[in-house]
């Protein structure tokens, strides 16, 4: 697939997002053992390029549905960084006021419609947002991020059928990292022909296994453009790799369920390093310094913010 040479300002923009997500998650991993983040964290390190590529073609009035492994998409869609880290700390200024934790990041202003810790359950919810988007006819779209494991839940099939039937403006982006917790695909799928399965619902479906951010961005841009014109749903399966353990701050190649050799090709084509190398050194350093400051500020904010008042335990049960 030929992708034309990206312009410098595009590279800089995408690099900034990638670097922001990577830096923030590395900081999460560093802080985690102190117990100040008392919430199960699922890092996306290695997979950031998927969210960054796709969200770059979205408008502010578009929505994304994220998963418990949703840091990357939350940030890439413009979620509030301070509120995100504060939420992981359980603080009152968190994006869910300390009622969600790391698995339930939300930012309605930025179009991040929240995450569920029950795998697959956000797929029909995202589809409902797409139904609303179509009714409002403003040309906005929904992107539903999901994992390979989520495609095994019944509601995935049910949602695909409904989205296709009603030609809803929803782009399903399956981040296929090959594992669900520690179980590899081969123990869960009889064939890996996911895009064929999806296509039979009448949904254009493509697989992108180059790990190339620019290629993915182009495919997403085409799909979203078609959707804004009333073209109905689309599906992208993106091959990627989770560098860290399923949940927690460590690398887990010593656990025996996956060999470190699997990581090697992904580490070599790491899109954060790749885009960094495409930028003039001065520009890259400027972005790095700005990102480091931004992340440090978000953690400082979370550290200093107060916890919610226990008296407010019963808030938000009903609207």
């Amino acid at each position: 697939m030929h992708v034309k040479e990206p312009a410098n300002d595009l590279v800089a923009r995408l690099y900034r997002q990638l670097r922001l997500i990577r830096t923030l998650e590395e900081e999460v991993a560093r802080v985690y053992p102190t117990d100040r983040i008392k919430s199960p964290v699922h890092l996306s390190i290695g997979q950031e390029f998927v969210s960054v590529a796709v969200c770059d073609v979205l408008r502010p009035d578009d929505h994304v549905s994220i998963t418990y492994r949703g840091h990357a998409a939350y940030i890439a869609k413009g979620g509030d960084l301070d509120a995100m880290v504060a939420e992981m700390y359980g603080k009152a200024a968190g994006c869910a006021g300390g009622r969600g934790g790391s698995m339930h990041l939300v930012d309605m202003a930025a179009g991040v419609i929240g995450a569920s810790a029950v795998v697959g359950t956000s797929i029909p919810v995202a589809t409902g947002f797409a139904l609303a988007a179509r009714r409002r006819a403003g040309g906005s779209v929904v992107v539903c991020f999901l994992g390979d494991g989520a495609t095994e839940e019944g509601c995935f099939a049910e949602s695909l059928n409904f989205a296709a039937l009603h030609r809803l403006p929803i782009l399903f982006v399956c981040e296929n990292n090959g594992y669900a917790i520690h179980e590899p695909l081969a123990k869960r799928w009889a064939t890996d022909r996911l895009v064929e399965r999806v296509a039979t619902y009448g949904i254009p479906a493509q697989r992108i296994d180059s790990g190339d951010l620019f290629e993915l961005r182009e495919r997403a841009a085409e799909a979203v453009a078609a959707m804004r014109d009333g073209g109905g749903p689309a599906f992208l399966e993106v091959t990627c790799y989770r560098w860290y353990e399923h949940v927690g701050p460590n690398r887990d190649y010593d656990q025996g369920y996956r060999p470190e050799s699997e990581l090697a090709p992904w580490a070599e084509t790491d899109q954060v390093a790749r885009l960094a190398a495409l930028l003039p050194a001065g520009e890259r350093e400027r972005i790095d310094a700005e990102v480091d400051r931004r992340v440090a500020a978000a953690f400082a904010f979370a550290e200093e913010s107060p916890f919610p008042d226990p008296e407010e335990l019963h808030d938000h049960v009903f609207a």
Partner: protein
Amino acid sequence: MSSPDRSSPDGASSGGRLLRYVDALCEAFAQEMRRDDSVFLFGLDVDDHKAIQGSTRGLLAEFGAERVFTTPLSEDAMTGVAIGAAMAGMRPIHTHIRMDFLLLCMNQLVNIAAKAHYMYGGAVKVPLVVRSMIGKSWGQGAQHSQALHSMFMHVPGLKVVAPSNAHDAKGCMIAAVRDDNPVIVMEHRLLYPTEAEVPEAPYEVKPGKARIVAPGDDVTVVGISNMVLECLRARELLAEVGISAEVIDPIWLSPLDIDTIARSAARTGRLLVADNGWTACGAGAEIVAQVLERTGDARIAVRRIGFEPTTCPPSPPLEARFYPNPGTVASTVHAMLRPAAAPWQPDPERTRLAHQIQFRGPF
């Protein structure tokens, strides 16, 4: 603490050794699978290197992938598959790492598993075990910490059990596997490392008998699942202010041994149910109602405590307020006994949840 979880619960036969709850479960599976070829164990991650916190460790090696296997992420269909296999004469043990995920199985469990024997006029049996673990604390939040036993207690045809110690974990699990009905086994994450005397030979802790874990005269306190331990701590705190509490573990919630509880409550005149779940339409409501119906004694003072009527928050100070603990149990009992006295709160340092102290994330 006088380590009541280490003492041999009554009914334990000899030949015991100290075993952790998680290892007692694993021993139950191994023994039942050795005994009966139709027993198999499946569910997400039962065969990975973490082996459901170790509760299925070694089973794949001994029994092979035909009898110990993971599944796709398809709880609803897998429940139906388990039900079908059970009707066909197998004895499946379907495992879930969180009780919350049973909600995806609800249709199959309630509409099929619970009813099949009845609606087919006794022509089929569903000897199915559904294991589910309550995940609590450490910021696990709204969807990873629910105890949903009362939803299942509502449904005729389902049995529900919530063992609170290693001895009962093994005995209840063996009883569940041998039972010809669908049994929901509610395990508790925080109980996994706790130890008790566990006999080596297989044995059953069947429905029909609640256990008086500790005797007392002033109040009957029923604890459910891990709340048994918290109630025992509350009992110690209460003893220091001269209140004698009898602590009862119902063990099986459905069918429920109401007689043991009713006899105790009739004697003490006071009944508190401390649930590991919400109180509305909950196990506590059921126990209190049955005791009053059974005794016909309207003078018995009754109280329920459990989760605060809100969703579980991960933020530490909110979470601390959400769960009942030995302090809330003790102060509630104190208020029942001495309504005219000033409210009493035990030293907060001594009321922290028994196992919160040793549990650390991630997961």
